[in-house]
């Protein structure tokens, strides 16, 4: 759910700063999904 939210926000954001934050924060749920 959190990952979906982050992905949708990454695709719709129109500010480069928010895009960067969301782009990088997607790694957190991926780490949990893959590594834990």
């Amino acid at each position: 759910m959190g990952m979906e939210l982050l992905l949708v926000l990454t695709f719709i954001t129109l500010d480069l700063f928010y895009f960067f934050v969301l782009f990088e924060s997607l790694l957190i749920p991926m780490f949990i999904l893959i590594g834990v």
Partner: protein
Amino acid sequence: MLFGMIYLHTVVGSLNYYVLLVYPLSFCDQILCWCCFFLAFAVKMPLFPVHIWLPEAHVEAPTAGSMLLASLLLKLGGYGLLRFSLTFLAEATVVFTALVSVLALAGVIYGSLSTLRQVDLKRIIAYSSVSHMNLVVLGIIAFNQEGLEGATYLMVAHGLVSSALFFCVGVIYDRAHTRLLRYYGGLVTVMPLFATGLLLFSLANMSFPGTPNFLGELLIFAGVFQRSSVVLFLSTAGIVLSAAFSVFLFNRLTFGTLKTKYAAEFTDTNRREFSILIVIGAPSLLLGVCSNIVLEFTHYALADTALYCDAIALRN
């Protein structure tokens, strides 16, 4: 990317997308920012030679993780290239076209060749993902309507087909608890439903006509041909190889004799697995024959970008 963003904010004073679109960035600023942004997007795509993380991540990840990784995460890089590199950094993108073309071509051929020598099922699909995503980059840097639409369409198609293939690997991993290819064979005798699903997605992965990958790759090749016939010729070599590894994978898994005694005890897909195959397979079949579902949205969304990039490419 962070460095590029800070630099961009220092120069422009804002990071709003619409402000960046109209701000006249100098050529040197564009080059610097393009390098920073491209590195981040190239790793995410993953473009050759920064693709090594992808097979490793797929091998470590559970089935659901691999499906999400292949279907959603990789597309962020392509989206970033389309959204940022082709708009306010377009002039720098045109300058680096030759370099990116060489890297993407190497990725298409290397990715396809690598699949032929892998023994792990997930690695085979991961390297085929590398090959397809590098083809997406080739479509993006064709700078025309066909290339951009093809790249977008192939990203959608790859999201469905690749995740379905990872799911198929998960299905047989649940039964045999190994992903090594040498332990599999003759699965069509014990798992006919699974074999049918695998056949469908293997055909889609090799861009068989009637599948969404075919339409995406056809549009990309139409776009690439307008730029360079040499690049087209070399990239089609990757497609021949992708057909080879798809046939090789399907043939080794489903035909021949059962490799282990306990393989005879395997049960076919249960209701849960079959319903997931249907949920992924139905849109794949639909997009293979009704491309307008996606293209009617992307056509107008990408038209301005294509015209703008095409004009800059012709000027240079």
